[in-house]
């Protein structure tokens, strides 16, 4: 089980309070689809994904990105029990969605990069480290129920 120190929790929650979940979610998912185009395999029914601007302007991408990031919000409220928090979602991603857990790591890294670009100076190495730990914890929790 991942353990977060009080400082790590503070680094995460203080930044999270300032994140526009709708915008950041859309941007994170959009960038995932642009930078790692093979991830588009999960979104055949999303319509136009033919260019970076099409992807980032795509309303389905934005909506789904918001959904994903809202779920991150749950993780942040439950940092001491990520596996429990994501048990059902883990089953879903394995049994119904058939998503390779490597994609969770990719999305986590894209999100860290977005946080860096939004928060600049505030996104110090130690703040980044706390977030990387959270991303790794979420990715592991989401992969936990795979079989």
């Amino acid at each position, binding site marked *: 089980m991942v353990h977060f120190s009080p400082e790590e929790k503070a680094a995460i929650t203080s930044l999270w309070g300032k994140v526009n979940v709708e915008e950041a979610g859309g941007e994170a998912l*959009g*960038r995932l689809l*642009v*930078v790692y185009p093979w991830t588009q395999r999960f979104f055949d029914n999303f319509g136009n994904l033919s260019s*970076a601007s099409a*992807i*980032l302007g795509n309303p389905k991408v934005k909506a789904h990105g918001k959904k994903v990031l809202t779920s991150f919000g749950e993780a942040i409220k439950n940092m001491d029990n990520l596996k429990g928090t994501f048990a059902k979602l883990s089953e879903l991603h394995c049994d119904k969605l058939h998503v390779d857990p490597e994609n969770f790591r990719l999305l986590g*890294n894209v999100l*860290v*990069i*977005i946080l*860096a*670009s*939004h*928060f*600049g*100076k505030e*996104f110090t*190495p*130690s703040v*980044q*480290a706390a977030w*990387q*730990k959270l991303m790794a914890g979420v990715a592991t929790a989401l992969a936990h129920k795979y079989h």
Partner: protein
Amino acid sequence: MVLSAADRAAVRALWKKLGSNVGIYATEALERTFASFPTTKTYFPHFDLSPGSAQVKAHGKKVADALTTAVGHLDDLPGALSALSDLHAHELRVDPVNFKFLGHCLLVTLARHYPGDFGPAMHASLDKFLSHVISALASSYG
């Protein structure tokens, strides 16, 4: 994944903009790598890794110079980086998984300092460039 003409142009343009600051950013990327991926520190037991370390700064400059060489040889990365690949494979014996950690932290550093330039297309081009550098660095292994 090939580096298209657009990817090359984007990387070259950004590098020009970074100018003489590449060393500073490579150093910051190293600091971020040590903080976020502590296992990477196992390769530097002989270094002072505290903030502001002169050794880390010197190493950042070496990494920066290698990356600048890479940017200057986008048509032949394996050739340009073959000596460095030999070094990392046979002398330093660094597990290649670590190249990805540094690559990621370089992207984080650039996004932090140049948010306006770090749109999705630039992000994609840089990510591809670093993947190619990592591939070239890993080419002497095994």
